[in-house]
């Protein structure tokens, strides 16, 4: 049975950074992930990752990937189905029924877009309903669209869509929480109309999206707006389906960690957006990944049967 010193689940900024640090510490490491880059893939312009004044998400992922490939790190491109600890070893079962065994694990599985849970959302998924304006934006040239959400992703999506759509209706539950610099850009864009205190309660159409029903939160007053696209950017939920109840989580379902990235289970660490660390940013995820890898190394060094004492 092949036993890895460290298994990293997820290959976003946290996972890839953890990989580089782990290998440099001499740990026999494997990264298991459904994709490379995670949410960064869905981000267009990144202007707050140090070293790059402005870089596209995909380009940053390619740079991360190139750096990881410099090292002898095993990569397995598959989703994880379950994780359990027996004795001092962790057993990770993948969707393709492979079992990976490790002495320590860092969960860096990130987050996925939250759904709105309104009638029509599932029915019109990809038929006007999209969770990726960067991908599908150009398909909405010359038509009106709606964006739901008030944070950075929603405002970025609206700004991005202004390049294609005729009008953009932005619905936010309260006032916009996006960075001031983005809100300023939004205000300069005449195609974008902001509706604070509103939410979409239904998505309607026949074959594809034709309109949305909007509700004013305070008065419950409802009205329809014709749109052909609905971009849902209302935040994210952690990817923790493969983790059982023995791993403590917070009210947001994020894996609880201390300031050393340790979970409640010895040898199990978490880093980046999936963890309870405050603030979800690429630069923070990368830093947390580095910290988790160093902590995992420290944990392994102090194991009674430490692989590093051989």
């Amino acid at each position, binding site marked *: 049975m092949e036993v890895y010193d460290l298994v990293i689940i997820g290959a976003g900024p946290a996972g890839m950074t953890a990989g580089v640090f782990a290998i440099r510490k001499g740990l026999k490491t494997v990264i298991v992930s459904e994709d490379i880059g995670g949410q960064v893939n869905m981000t267009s312009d990144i202007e707050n990752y140090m070293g790059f004044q402005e870089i596209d998400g995909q380009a940053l992922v390619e740079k991360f990937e190139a750096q990881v490939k410099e090292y002898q790190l095993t990569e397995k491109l598959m989703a994880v189905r379950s994780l359990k600890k027996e004795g001092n070893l962790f057993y990770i079962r993948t969707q393709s029924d492979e079992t990976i065994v490790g002495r320590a694990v860092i969960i860096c599985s990130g987050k996925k877009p939250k759904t709105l849970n309104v009638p029509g959302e599932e029915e019109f998924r990809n038929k006007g309903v999209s969770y990726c304006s960067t991908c599908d934006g150009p398909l*909405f040239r010359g038509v009106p669209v709606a964006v739901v959400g008030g944070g950075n992703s929603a405002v970025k999506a609206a700004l991005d869509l202004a390049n294609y759509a005729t009008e953009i209706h932005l619905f936010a539950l309260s006032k916009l929480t996006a960075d001031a610099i983005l809100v300023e850009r939004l205000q300069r864009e005449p195609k974008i109309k902001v509706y604070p205190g509103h939410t979409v309660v239904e998505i309607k159409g026949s074959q594809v999206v034709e309109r949305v029903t909007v509700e004013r939160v305070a008065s419950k007053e409802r009205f329809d707006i014709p749109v052909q696209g609905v971009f849902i950017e209302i935040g994210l939920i952690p990817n923790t389906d493969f983790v059982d109840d023995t791993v403590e989580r917070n009210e947001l379902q994020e894996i609880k960690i201390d300031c050393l990235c340790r979970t409640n289970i010895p040898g199990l660490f978490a880093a980046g957006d999936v963890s309870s660390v405050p603030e979800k940013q690429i630069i923070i995820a990368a830093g947390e990944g580095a910290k988790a890898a160093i902590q995992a190394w420290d944990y392994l060094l102090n194991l009674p049967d430490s692989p590093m004492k051989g």
Partner: protein
Amino acid sequence: MSDITVYTTPTCPWCTRLKNYLKEKGVDFHEVDVSTDYDSAMKMVDLTGQRSVPVLAKGGQYVVGFNPEQIDRILQ
């Protein structure tokens, strides 16, 4: 020209993944950028009934999104 068409947009990460996947497998394909070619964009929407990229089309069959399993099935 290849009988495989890949509909993409330049900013779409999954489109890049799909193209890299096909290149790694040595599969020839013809790429259509639907952000600049409106007629093709509508042709793609008609074919799939969906407004989403990437789309891989071969004959009357198609796969929306980057789904290696379904793509392998079509390529066989």
